[in-house]
């Protein structure tokens, strides 16, 4: 890890298991990793490898069975549910595969949702929402409901919603999974901008090698273990096949 980049996300001996009757199923096995600030990280691996579980744990959507997680020096794995909820509002932006915009709200209102939980005036909220929508290029569609937007547009609204609170970390679970290649490319470009120009730390789960290529670094998981850490910072821009060590 470059010495000048401090770790935004630190995971130490993380493990997660679920009980199914008398059986204990281990999803993650003693995982340790660091994600520097401003890095665009791709998590890859076959189904059931634990990548979504890892993402959920880092984003504070679930609690680990053991180990520690630090995000921006906050000990996330020790927080209570209400503390996690408050922390997520301020610090994490989530981008979903299926966008999950609220169908009864307009694009503007969807983006504004996280800000309603923060102590802000109406004018402050408005300013931030318009900035976020401007960044994703959807100011002219802000009065439209999700049903009137294309898949790509909905995902852009999702990204705007994820970054409207100016979080330190953006997590994305298969953000291009439901999009055509053109829209997917637009989304990835946007995420690139967020990372490089706004220094956001992005962790993205993906099956798509083309999406993974846009990341600075790719981690491969298999059966809950880290099997390959592919730092592409130097090789970014070239097309390479991901391999298993």
């Amino acid at each position: 890890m470059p010495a000048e980049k401090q770790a935004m996300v630190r995971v130490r001996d993380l493990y997660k298991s679920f009980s199914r009757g008398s059986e204990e199923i281990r999803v993650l096995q003693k995982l340790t990793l660091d994600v520097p600030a401003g890095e665009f990280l791709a998590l890859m691996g076959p189904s059931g490898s634990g990548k979504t579980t890892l993402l959920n744990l880092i984003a504070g959507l679930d609690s680990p069975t053991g180990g520690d997680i630090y995000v921006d020096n906050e000990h996330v794995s020790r927080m209570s549910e209400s503390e996690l909820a408050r922390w997520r509002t301020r610090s994490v932006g989530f981008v979903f595969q299926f966008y999950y915009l609220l169908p009864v709200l307009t694009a503007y209102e969807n983006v504004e949702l996280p800000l309603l939980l923060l102590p802000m005036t109406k004018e402050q909220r408005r300013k931030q929402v318009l900035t976020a929508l401007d960044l994703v290029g959807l100011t002219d569609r802000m009065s439209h409901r999700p049903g009137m937007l294309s898949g790509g547009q909905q995902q852009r609204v999702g990204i705007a919603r994820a970054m409207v609170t100016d979080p330190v970390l953006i997590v994305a679970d298969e953000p291009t999974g439901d999009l055509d290649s053109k829209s997917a490319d637009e989304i990835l470009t946007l995420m690139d901008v967020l990372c490089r120009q706004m220094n956001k730390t992005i962790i993205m789960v993906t099956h798509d090698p083309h999406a993974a290529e846009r990341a600075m670094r790719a981690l491969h998981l298999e059966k809950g273990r880290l099997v390959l850490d592919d730092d592409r910072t130097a090789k970014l821009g070239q097309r390479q096949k991901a391999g298993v060590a």
Partner: protein
Amino acid sequence: MPGMSLEFSLGQAALALLTILGILVGAGLFMGLLTLPIFFASMFYKNLWFWAAEERTGKILRRSFAQAVWTGFPAISLFSTVITFGYFGVFDIFEKLPLGKKGTTQTLFEGKYDDLTRKAGEKIIWRYPEGTAVEWKRDPVGGHAMLVMDEGATPEIIDGLSVPATMKPETPEEEADRKSQLKAAQAKARVRDQELKKIIRQQQAGIYAPPPEGDHTELSKEQLRRLDGMVSLVVESQSSMQLSIIQLIRGVGIFFMLIIGPFPLLVFGFSFIFGRRGMTMILRSLGRNLLRTSLTYLAIFVLVWVVTCVWSVLDFLDKLTQEKDANMKGLITEKYQIPSQMKPSHLNTIKSMLEELPEGQKPENIEDNLMTWAFVGGTLDPSKRTPMNSLFFFCTEPEKVIKMMPGLEDLTAEQFKMLEEACKMMGQNPRAVVIGHAKLVQMNKRVGDRIQVTSLNYKDLVFDFEIVAEFPAGTRWDQSAAMSRKYLDNALSEYEGKNGKAHPLADKCMNLIWIRLPNKAVFESFSERLNTSGRFTPAVKMEIESSAYANFLSPYKDLIRFLRYALAPGLLAVTTLVISLVISIGVRERRVEMAVLKVLGFRPWMVMALVLGEALLLGSLSGFLATATAYSLVNAMGGIPLPIGFFGKFFVPASALWWGPAIGTITSALGTIMPAWSARKIKVSEVFSRVA
């Protein structure tokens, strides 16, 4: 009343109750469907305001419209709320008024509103001026023409053709023949009325058809009477039409002011506490599945409608049996016999006992605080007696009615005046009777008609009455009638004169005596004296009005208990289950959405509040619409028909306007607790791992 052959047995009442419940549910469904657009319009009204609150972009016209809505809607709602609150006496709540009495503000608001609606009604539909009449002597030709037109189209002929002539079932041919004759008679009557209206208009304009030259037949007294009767009918029909329009305007006006007044104001107010965005989400979520929302609305509407009607009956009966502290009214009846049949001379004994009371305990004017009742049952057709042609008279002193009659506090100022006029006419003419509006419609009679009533309990007495007025529609006397005590006394004297002996009921023709005393202490002491005086044969007893009603209602207590403790709670329980099911389905469908809200940082209680908020808004608005409709419509149509004792009809009280939202809200809340709790407990990681 026992012995009158007009009472309903418990079995009949139970069967009637089941039928009425079926009708209530059917009516509730029908009204629910009819008010569904109003429900969605009401949601739209509120949604529009929330839109206007946020609208800051767009063309100037759009922004101006938004600004007008943002300020205008709450102003309209506030105005409507003030009117409706004033109308229903909310501002008099701290005046500590006796039960049934209206406060100053309510009287003012009600008066102004009734005045305004009356003027509006008079503009929409005219009526003939007071005292409209036709001078037939100046238009004998017209008179004769009317008489010819009237032949075959008199009200009696039309009435006769409206029902089969005999109890024997008609053949289809006979039925078709009768109906075609009826149609022809009705058509003839319409033509006659049109011509009559022309004559009235002409005479009002001072135009009189010149009598033909030569010999022409003058109109006889009987013919003039018939013609005047026709004119009265036409004038009365026009007045009734105007009155109906006025009542409709009043009912609809209040209904819509209730819809756009207090309820939206409450929602607007709550948005300042709970946030506009939250309220917006709730309102819009109710619109996402219109079918489900509509069905839930209908379920709550029908529940609240039926419960309101049932509780209106119970509320009325509770009020009757509730003791009043001051100006206590009591009933004096025979002690050991039902039905009570006291001697007329008992009245004088009671008067002298009242005179013996010390000052301070004695009523100021004894005559004004006593009223006798005799119950007289009769039929218009002794050979074919039906409930439609039978009626029940309160035989009393007309001048005492507006001083002592129970239920006067239910009347509006206008209705009280009408009753006062009617009693005056009865006082001037012993033949005069006043019959309830609903009863008149049932018998197909009108004010101005003369009727012959064969008494059922006063055997061999046939009464010749003139209907001079009707009891105001929508009051508790809608099915009853009142006759003058003087007439009965004269009839009994005539019987004695004719037959050489007194009528068997001559010495038993006082069924009860109403008495009013200053307070409970006087009441109790006088009651004690009366019960033990030994001056009455047969012996009498005195009881408070409320106790007397309670005793009278005791045969119906099982029915009342069923209504209160089984039916209403049963309906509430079933609807709660239905709502619970519907909301559970909704929550299951929206699991992912709720998980997303949690991801964004919404606390579990916020997610729960959204689910509860939707249910509470739906429940309270549905309940409110149900009671507003029941109050406006049921009362306008003359009340809930339920044969409990001699109470023919029951009315929805104004207090139902808060029961309805309360029942709807509580039912929705109870039904939503479990699904809302499960929404609160949604685990984000589980939801998304399943989705993945």
